[in-house]
């Protein structure tokens, strides 16, 4: 709920009105002794434009209500008026920290709806890039999380490595963040020559960099004090509140979609799913740090076993013909024109495709009505669902802990508000 009319309005609401507004599950108890503190949307550590309404007893959080919608851009609605391929660019802009995962989720849903499957080479490339995106996303998470706890150097070190990954993305897709590299039926183009050496180099230096971050965080007594036993969420609570990703695995529930319901050939890779049982901020931190290492393993296996062959499926109804054919094949020209003006028609029906994004289960619900544009697109974004459990995690914590907890569930407001 965004208050559109009067910025002061929230101050003037009575406790009963507040309770009515913020409803069950996250209600404001409303005792005069407590102080209402509005945190955000312009606040250094709400990771964008999240607004939290805190009810404080001294510095202890009695109640907390998240208020979102400040970044709502109506992506789901917009996509209904875009063709399947054109809608892809919008998915980049949801979780802007790992656009590759979003692309993958959407593209897999489109391919599922069309009933096609990408070529083996395309699948491996997708996996490599998605895992790179996962590492880069976790780097931003670690940096901002550490910054929330005022360990400011980690932030800059993380961004240095992230820069390297973004450079790889630029090398591959021509864009650093809004890549739109995966296309229905395959990829935009094949990998460039310099891709493999660059990634190999990354694999070489990254473990020592992770060790550097851990030197500043992992066993630091202050870090432990700040993270251990903070924001605890039990396994039952985590499942009941729909938490996914490292936040869920930090509570000891072993569920990783890459393992449980493999897509894009994840079953061929040998990797572990890091699991912690404490369910606190520190456990989630440990999970993500370990996930970075596992991602590096996956990337290495992908590079080692990168098959040859085309990156796009051989279906001119879905994939535009190669440029070299346009000059001499009338058929190719027709397909090219038809694809770029009308797109392809998807069958009637609906599909639901989940992928494991760095933040958790990213899923795309896609309903086709036989035409070139989706009739309904819905994204189940992990940050949005994970945010729901913020009130139960923060109850009884301190204001400073709330900051740590927000950091630990790694929310991206672009994805929450869509």
């Amino acid at each position: 709920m965004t208050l559109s009319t009067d910025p002061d309005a929230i101050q003037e609401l009575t406790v009963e009105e507040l309770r009515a507004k913020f409803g069950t599950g996250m209600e404001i108890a409303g005792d005069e002794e407590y102080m209402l503190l509005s945190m955000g949307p312009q606040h250094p550590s709400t990771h964008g434009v999240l607004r939290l309404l805190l009810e404080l007893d001294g510095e202890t959080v009695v109640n907390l209500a998240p208020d979102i919608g400040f970044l709502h851009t109506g992506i789901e609605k917009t996509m209904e008026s875009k063709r399947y391929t054109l809608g892809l660019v919008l998915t980049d802009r949801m979780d802007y920290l790992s656009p590759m995962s979003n692309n993958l989720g959407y593209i897999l849903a489109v391919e599922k709806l069309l009933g096609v499957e990408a070529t083996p080479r395309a699948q491996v490339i997708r996996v490599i890039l998605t895992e790179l995106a996962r590492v880069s996303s976790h780097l931003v998470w670690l940096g901002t999380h550490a910054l929330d706890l005022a360990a400011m150097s980690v932030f800059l070190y993380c961004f240095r490595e992230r820069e390297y990954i973004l450079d790889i993305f630029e090398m591959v897709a021509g864009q650093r963040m809004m890549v739109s590299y995966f296309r229905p039926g395959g990829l935009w183009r094949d990998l460039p020559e310099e891709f493999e050496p660059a990634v190999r180099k990354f694999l070489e230096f990254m473990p020592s960099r992770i060790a550097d971050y851990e030197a500043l965080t992992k066993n630091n007594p202050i870090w432990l004090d700040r993270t251990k036993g903070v924001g605890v969420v039990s396994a039952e609570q985590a499942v009941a509140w729909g938490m996914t990703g490292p936040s869920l695995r930090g509570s000891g529930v072993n569920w990783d979609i890459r393992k449980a319901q493999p897509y894009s050939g994840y079953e061929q890779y040998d990797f572990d799913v890091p699991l912690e049982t404490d369910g606190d901020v520190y456990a989630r931190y440990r999970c993500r740090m370990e996930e970075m290492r596992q991602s590096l393993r996956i990337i290495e296996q992908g590079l080692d076993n990168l098959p040859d062959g085309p990156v796009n499926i051989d279906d001119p109804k879905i994939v535009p013909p190669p440029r070299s054919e346009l000059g001499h094949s009338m058929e190719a020209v027709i397909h090219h024109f038809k694809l770029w003006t009308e797109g392809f028609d998807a069958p009637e029906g609906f599909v639901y495709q989940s992928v494991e994004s760095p933040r958790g289960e990213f899923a795309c619900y896609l309903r086709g009505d036989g035409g070139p544009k989706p009739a309904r697109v819905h994204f189940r974004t992990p940050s949005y669902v994970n945010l729901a459990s913020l009130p139960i995690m923060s109850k009884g914590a301190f204001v400073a802990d709330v900051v740590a907890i927000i950091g630990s569930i790694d929310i991206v407001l672009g994805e929450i508000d869509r």
Partner: protein
Amino acid sequence: MTTSQIALWGLVVGFIITLIMVTGFAYTTLFERKLLARLQVRFGPNRVGYIPIPSRKGKERKLLGGFMQPAADAVKLFMKEDMTPAKVDRVVYFIAPMMAVFTAIAILAVIPWAGKLPGLPAQYEYFAIAPGINVGVLYVLAITSLGVYGIVLAGWASNNKYAVLGGIRATAQMISYELAMGLTILVPIMLADSMDMGQIVAGQKGMWYIFLQPIAAIVFWIVIMAELQRAPFDMSEAEQELSAGFSVEYGSMRFGMFFMAEYMKMIIFSAIFAVFFLGGYRGPFVDQFPVLGLVYTTLKIIFGLFLMIWIRASLPRLRYDQLMAFGWKRLLPISVINFIVVGVAIVLVEEGVFDSLIRSIQQAIPFLG
């Protein structure tokens, strides 16, 4: 010297030192930004005021990059609109930054900067604004304890919940850490058998107290960081939690005054740490050339600043309750025990138990002057 001469001396020297301090504060900010940047593999400010040096790679801003940055900052702060938010308590809102700066400057009075410089009045044993005060250490404690007013009043007057939280945090923190501070300060006092800062420095001839009392030195350093509200103890402004805490409603030079107070206090407390544990202005050949004392003091201050900034770059922030627990449950017992141990040890030394040990250490490190 008559009373009025003493007062005149205090005024003149005080004015000069305050001026130096204000410049020093500006360059401390630059030092912090530069050093922080280097610790984080960045450049730091290097645009304002540089000497372009042609190098193989082309134009690089190498030498003295950014040495005019403090001036630019000052101009920016002065040029900004000096606004007062609507619902603040105006009087207190105006007083608070002044209180902060006042307490920072007042401590300067008793700090010894150098030994018996040439030209110093005959009865002064060392160079300070007000030398020879027999309660110098207590004076430091007293003025330090007033330092909290700037923050508390700013927090309260701003009529902002974040500011109030910052103010309350600062109060509790300052009061808690002052205890440990008082108890650790007792250690050099006991060792030097005087509360005169100059006597404490003089007492460190041949042996800095940090080597005699490393525990007290570490505790005192931690307490200094807490008193200064420096990371990892910067509860009251806690960027990530309270956005800017007590100073959230301040802007332009009024904010600049808080900034000034903080950085001047950084310098001053580095100096105080040097006086108590690093032998103050003492160093090799300082007895022959008293002017060297100024150099040593400066070097030791820079070392202190370096340490503060380095720690800030490396450590996460404590939580408020952990900070209090740390102060009361760790530092206070440590300093109490340490203080008792030192007391017993001094008596034993006076009885002559450790004579040979001390002599051998003194022989091992003669360079400390």
